[in-house]
C-alpha cells in the first residue's frame, strides 16, 4: 500500500531543507512569510480502496413504518416512543423477549390466520 511519503517524501525533504537554509537570521515577520511561501501542506492522495460503513450506531438501528397511525399508536401504547428529532423508541425489552420466545418455538405465528399459538411444552 502506497503511503503519503511515497508521493510526497522527496518534495517535503527539499522544501524543509530549503526553508532551513533560507531562514537563518530572519526576523519573525520574514519567517512567517517564508513559511507561507515554502511550507504549504500537500493534499493526501485520494483513497481508491474499499471504504467501511460509517453511520454511527447503524448496525443497531431499524426504521419501522406502520400501515396506519392506529397501528403506530398501538405500538406506542406498549413501547415508550419519544419524539426528540423524530419519533423513536429504545426501550425494547418486551419486544426482544417476545422475539426470543418466537425464535425458541414457545410461541408460533400462524400467518394465514394472523394469530399466535402458545406452545408451553417447548422449553426456551
Amino acid at each position, binding site marked *: 500500500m502506497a*503511503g503519503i*511519503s511515497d508521493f510526497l517524501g522527496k518534495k*517535503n525533504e527539499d522544501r524543509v531543507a530549503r526553508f*532551513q537554509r533560507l531562514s537563518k537570521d530572519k526576523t*519573525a515577520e520574514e519567517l*512567517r512569510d517564508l513559511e507561507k511561501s515554502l511550507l504549504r501542506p500537500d493534499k493526501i492522495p485520494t483513497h481508491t480502496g474499499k471504504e*467501511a460503513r460509517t453511520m454511527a450506531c447503524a448496525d443497531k438501528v431499524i426504521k419501522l413504518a406502520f400501515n396506519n397511525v392506529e397501528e403506530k399508536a398501538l405500538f406506542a401504547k406498549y413501547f415508550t416512543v419519544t419524539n426528540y428529532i423524530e419519533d423513536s423508541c*429504545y426501550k425494547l425489552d418486551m419486544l426482544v423477549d417476545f422475539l426470543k420466545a418466537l425464535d425458541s418455538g414457545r410461541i408460533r405465528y400462524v400467518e394465514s390466520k394472523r394469530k399466535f399459538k402458545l406452545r408451553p411444552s417447548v422449553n426456551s
Partner: protein
Amino acid sequence: MSNQSESSSCGRPSIVDEAMRWVRENEGTKIDPCKGSYPSPRISSELMDCSMPLTFDQYSFCGLGCLYCFAYFFKSQNPSMKGKMGVKAVDIDALIKTMESKIKQGRTASAMQKHFYNKKFLFHWGGLADPFCSFEKENKEGLKLIKWLGENNYPTLFSFKGGTVLAKPYMELWQKYSKQRNFAFQFSIVTADDATAANVEVGVPSPTSRFKVMKTLSDMGYWTILRLRPFLIGITDRTLDEILEKSFEAGARGISTEFFAMDCRMTDGMKTRYNYLAKEMGLKDFDGLEDYFRKLSPTERGGYRRLNRDVKERHIKKLYQFAVKHNMVLGISDPDFKELNMSGSCCAMPDKFPDNPLLENWSRNQLTYHLTQMRKHYHKTGECRTLTFTQCYGINTFMDETSLANDHVAVIGVSNAVRQRSTLRDIIRQRWNNLDSAANPRNYFHGKLMPAGMDNEGNMIFKYTPSSYEDRWTAEGIDLTK
C-alpha cells in the same frame, strides 16, 4: 475587526486591560449554590488519542485571562452559557460519596465508578479551567477533594498555572503526601519572558514564579511536567531554550506540547484577542493570522486549523533532542509528530513510575500509545505495522457504556433512541471508518496512518507511513527508537 482602540491610556494593549478586568472581577467571587452545580468529571472529547479520558474541573470556568485560551473560545460559542456567566462549582461532597460508592448511583455515575474510580484510573484535573485560579483561592472547593484523593492514594495529574497551589493548606497537603507521590503536576508555560507572559497570560503568576513552584514540587519527589501548550510559533520559540533549561533545572521529568490551533469560527471577542496575539507572533493583525493558518493548515483536518508538520518540524526536533539528552519523557499531544511520544501518554506521564505505580494507570487503548509503538517498531525492525480498530481500542471498556455517550457532541441532532443506544465506541468507530471526517486517523495525522484494507469486522485497517523527516533525522544520527 473590533473598533476597540489598540492601546489604553497607560500604553498597554486594550485587550490586555480587558482581560485584566476579567481577572479582577473574578477575584473574591463566592460560589452561589443557588445557581446549581457544575457536572464534572466528564469523558474527554479527545478520547481517540487521549490516555486520560477522565477529565475534571471543579468550576464551570476559569478566573485567569489567557488570550489564547481555547476553553474561552468553546464557552463563548456555547449558547447555554449566554447570560449565565455566574461561576458554578461541582458538588464535591456528592462526588466524593460517588467515588466511595456511598450513595445510590445513577447510570453515568455507576459507569464512572465501574470503569474509573474503582480501578483508581488516573484523574486528570484541569481540562477546561485552572484548578488553582482565583475561584479556588476564595472557595476552596478543590481542597476538599485533594484531601480525599490524598487520603485514598488516588493518582491525579493537575494541569495548571494558577498561584493558589502555593497557599498554605495546599502546601501542607503536598508535603503530607510527598512520600506517597500519588500527585503529578503539569505546569503550563508558553514563554520564559515575564514581560511577554504578563500580556499573553493575563493575571497568571510569572513564568519565573512558576519555575520556582515546579522546583518546590519536584524537590518533594513529585513527577512534574513542563506543559508547553499551546506552543505559539513566534512567541514560544523566542525563549524555547530558556524554557527547556529552566524546566530541567526545576526538576521536570516530562515535556508535553501541542501547537496553537485556530478555529475558523470566530466571535468578536476572539478576533480582538487574536489580533493582539498575531502581532506578538510576527503577523500583521488578525487577518494576517487567519491567512497564515488558512494557507499552512491541511484542509483534511476541517475547520479547526492546525498548521502542517513541516512548519513545526524544527521546534519538535529541538524538543526531541533535548528530551533524549536529559532523559526526559516527551509527550506530543499535537497530531503532527504524535508518533514521537516517548511514553504512550501525550501528557508525558511515565510508562513506569516505581515510586507509585498508580501513576501508570492511564489508558493504552488509544491512538497515541499505538502510534508511538508503531514508530518504535519501524525504527527497530524496518517494518511498517498495521493497526485495527479492536487492537487500538480493546473490548469491554468504558467505551461500551451508553450512559457515557449521552452528552457527546456527536449525538446532538439525532433521535432520542439513537442517542440512548449510542456508545463512545459507536462514535469513534464512525470516525475511524469515515475518510471524510476530520477526526479520521488518516486525516487527523495527515497521512501518518494510511488506509490499508478492511478487517473481518468491516472496519478500516491503518498502516504506519514513514515521513521524510525520519530519514533525515536518522541520517543526522538522531535515535528514533526512544
